[in-house]
């Protein structure tokens, strides 16, 4: 088992009073709580802070923690031989648990545990895991293999850290940031209590062509100046294969051309849309013929895209 210096985690002295511990916890919790923090490492950091606080705020647990001795953070250690007899009534192996499990497993302090009719009851834990899938997988639906290391309690209420693997079917309709609940696929409930649920956070891998917003997709559509000016029919790749898109004459850069129902399928019914965002691409190297044609166009055209500048300035002054 690896040692964690809970005093260091909270940034308090080893002789800090309960109020100082609570104050330090609140300050850090406000900063790192995963529901309010945008820090990518916030969740892990908050878990460490919460574990430290759960132990140090309880005088009995704090005494038990202090009795473990002092080590460097991350250093392998074993509790003193008489420690579990002194502070708990359960036997445990220190190989398959971490420090937080050790304190959560102290007698009478298991979360949400209760005795009913002499039977030890505890609902199964909810698990939460992120499933990274591709846009194509989201579009068709997919099955993902997930691996989680979770604390589990046996029938005697002893905690073990076990690796669990899940095969989870993600139906079509997923998009970035969406949540899927798999009922009863979390930790096993004890003594007849219900099993926990498994929550899948869907994270889409970035795609080389498409950007995702909800179930809509956005694609850059480069057009030549003459395609934009004259109109054209161009091939556009979609998740379901290429389609021909009619670009109207006089299309300008930044214009959104909508391909209805060519986005991601929605969970219930229907599909999002695909938007082609027009970019006007100009050749960086011109052949002699191209240069001559552009020069001829420049001479012959009266088009002035900056005509409004002068008008607007006059209006402002």
């Amino acid at each position: 088992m690896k040692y964690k210096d809970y005093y260091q985690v909270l940034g308090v002295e080893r002789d800090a009073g309960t109020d100082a511990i609570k104050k330090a916890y609140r300050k850090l919790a406000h900063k790192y709580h995963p529901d309010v923090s945008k820090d990518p490492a916030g969740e892990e950091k908050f878990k460490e802070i919460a574990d430290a606080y759960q132990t140090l705020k309880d005088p009995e647990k704090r005494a038990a923690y202090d009795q473990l001795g002092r080590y460097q953070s991350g250093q392998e250690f074993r509790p003193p031989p008489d420690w579990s007899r002194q502070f708990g009534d359960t036997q445990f192996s220190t190989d398959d648990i971490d420090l937080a499990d050790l304190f959560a497993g102290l007698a009478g302090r298991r979360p949400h545990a209760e005795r009913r009719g002499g039977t030890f009851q505890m609902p199964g834990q909810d698990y939460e895991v992120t499933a990274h899938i591709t846009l194509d997988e989201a579009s068709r639906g997919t099955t993902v293999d997930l691996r989680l290391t979770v604390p589990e309690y046996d029938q005697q209420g002893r905690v073990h850290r076990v690796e669990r693997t899940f095969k989870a079917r993600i139906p079509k309709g997923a998009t970035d940031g969406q949540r899927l609940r798999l009922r009863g696929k979390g930790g096993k409930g004890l003594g007849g209590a219900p099993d926990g649920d498994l929550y899948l956070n869907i994270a889409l891998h970035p795609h080389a062509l498409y950007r995702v917003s909800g179930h809509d997709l956005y694609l850059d559509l480069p057009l030549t100046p003459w395609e934009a000016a004259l109109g054209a029919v161009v091939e556009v790749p979609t998740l379901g294969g290429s389609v021909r898109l009619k670009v109207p004459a006089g299309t300008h850069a930044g214009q959104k051309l909508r391909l209805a129902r060519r986005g991601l399928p929605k969970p219930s019914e229907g599909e999002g849309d695909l938007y082609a965002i027009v970019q006007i691409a100009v050749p960086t190297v011109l052949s002699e013929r191209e240069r001559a044609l552009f020069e001829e166009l420049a001479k012959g055209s009266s088009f002035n895209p900056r005509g409004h500048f002068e008008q607007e300035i006059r209006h402002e002054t």
Partner: protein
Amino acid sequence: MKLEQADVMWLDAHCECSIAELVRLSGLSEAELRELVDYGALAPLNPQEAEWTFSGDIVLTVQAAGRLRDDLELDARTLALTLTLLKRVRELEAQIGELRAQLPR
């Protein structure tokens, strides 16, 4: 579509959730959930009826509420304000995401 009956469920506006199920999923009591409704942080689909049902996408909000209450020791009024502000943040993030998706690479 009832959340209780399905094994695999997208948590979105297409499923409905009873107040009893929200209690089970969030760890909040029914009284706390009703207080959050009173403060305007949660809105049932059928506020006029005795048995409230909620849109399935509210599950994530009430689970966050349960965690915030436990971890930050917030009372119902502060929790309601926090949820309202978090909702505003999520809406703004969604708008930023949509605008970002429209920016050329």
